[in-house]
């Protein structure tokens, strides 16, 4: 406590507060944050523990809940890996190459951010249905996407793509190309330079984008439910099970799943902060 006080004092002596409005702006900020975000989140965290930790565990450990959590997080991880692979290629093409229509390609990347998830959901469902444009081709090869867990994967891949591309782009365009010249001078082929110099340098950023896509995918609801079929134990995602439980007035059960998802989100947030610190040190 005293170290804390000591750290603050010299700063206060050196610079007096010049700009006005500190109390008002900080006060309103903290008040609004508390009322809109913190208190309601507190209501969620407390709820399932009304029956103690045992009660929370009983809610979570049912096979149906576990299956939904496994589906949401498992498919989100897979989708994030797909997004990071293609995101890396797309960002590279956008930053390094010049071709007609590049501006359009760049602008389109943000479509999943801007398009309401319900719209994306019914569009994907129509495309991948057995008689849809893509679904018909796939079904001819014996692959079924709509109304299976793979539908969850498709929707999560759609929703996560901008996160990996938009995280990589600014870092790629800032990255100095000197090291690539050095690698080339030392006799590396272009592919060796890319895979052993460029990609390792981008690794923290790539992981950051992947983590963001994963977090978004795990919590996603709107774009998935139209495509996934929502079969309990098979293609029912965790957010949907929350809604189902709410409709059955099972508040504690819904809150228990919500707490697990919130805890996962929090862990991802901490992981992202650590990743960004790593990326900043590497740069």
């Amino acid at each position, binding site marked *: 406590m005293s170290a804390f006080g000591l750290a603050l004092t010299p700063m206060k002596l050196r610079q007096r507060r010049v700009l006005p*409005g500190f109390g008002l702006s900080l006060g309103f900020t903290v008040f609004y944050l508390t009322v809109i975000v913190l208190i309601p989140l507190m209501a969620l965290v407390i709820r399932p523990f009304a029956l103690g930790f045992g009660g929370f565990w009983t809610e979570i450990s049912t096979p149906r809940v576990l299956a939904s959590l496994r589906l949401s997080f498992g498919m989100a991880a897979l989708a994030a890996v797909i997004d990071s692979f293609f995101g890396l290629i797309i960002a590279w093409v956008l930053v390094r190459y010049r071709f007609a229509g590049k501006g359009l390609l760049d602008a389109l990347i943000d*479509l999943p951010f801007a398009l309401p998830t319900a719209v994306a959901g019914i569009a994907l469902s129509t495309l991948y249905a057995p008689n*849809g*444009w893509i679904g018909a081709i796939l079904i001819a090869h014996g692959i079924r996407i709509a109304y299976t867990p793979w539908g969850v994967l498709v929707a999560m891949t759609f929703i996560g793509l901008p996160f990996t591309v938009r995280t990589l782009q600014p870092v790629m365009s800032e990255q100095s190309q000197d090291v690539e*010249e050095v690698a080339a001078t030392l006799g590396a082929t*272009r592919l060796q330079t890319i895979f052993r110099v460029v990609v390792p340098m981008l690794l923290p950023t790539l992981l950051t984008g992947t983590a963001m896509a994963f977090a978004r995918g795990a919590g996603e609801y709107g774009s998935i439910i139209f495509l996934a079929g929502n079969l309990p134990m098979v293609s029912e995602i965790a957010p949907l099970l929350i809604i189902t439980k709410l409709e059955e007035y099972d508040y504690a059960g819904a809150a228990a799943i919500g707490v697990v998802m919130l805890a996962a989100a929090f862990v991802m947030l901490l992981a992202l902060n650590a990743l960004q610190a790593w990326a900043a040190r590497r740069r």
Partner: protein
Amino acid sequence: MSGKFQNPTQDPLLLRIFLSLVAIGFVALFLVLPLLIVFKEALADGLGKAFAAIIEPDALSAVKLSLLAAGIAVPLNTVFGISAAWAVAKHDFSGKTILVTLIDLPFSVSPVVSGLIYVLVFGLQGWFGSYLLDHDIHILFALPGIVLATIFVTFPFVARELIPLMVDQGRDEEEAAISLGASGFSTFCRVTLPNIKWGLLYAVLLCNARALGEFGAVSVVSGHIRGQTNTMPLHVELLYNNYDYVGAFAVAALLALLALLTLVFKTILEWRYADELAAMHRH
């Protein structure tokens, strides 16, 4: 290659073509096709049918409700964002990192959980449930709940754009204005606001797009009363589940047009005013 000079930081032509095709192909398959199918399905029975589905009373009331909810949520979050950015960027205090992390928190929370928390506070079995029932105050399954959920999911937009922008811009101009005798309010209006106006517009644009398109969170708190508590995305879901595909895709096309319009304005802002946006959006 022998004899000809090859820029060591440029990929070989074949690799360039291959990666460009992969990037364009992936974007076409995952982003462009869903967009196309929305308009194709909306116009399946002609423009007249699509238009009729949009001006039908229930659809119009959904449009009105969406505009109303966004019209309340966006200005509130804008005031909050400006206030938070003023406190964080123009003053020193301890706990700043925690505050900024907490402001970002709603982005990591699943939309369904964002709705769930308000059910746990205002729902029948929630904290204030019986009080609200006794006093005949309707928050859930009514406008206030929809507005709250919309505020939550769009909470960080303005703040997270303005904070890095205003930190970058420093405090010198405001301090000069204050020392020359300007009041705090006129310093804000005549020095700060002109500096951040494009960044603010950018953030409000994205905040508004998300507010109009939010599905998961609003779905939990709305109650789905047709013509009364259905927003545009919820109306899309209702029509789609009732096998009214032309109607669902007509309203979806309206939302998709709004999304495209948002992307166009966003791209214009990024090209024209890149220096006046937060660094992460500069291309």
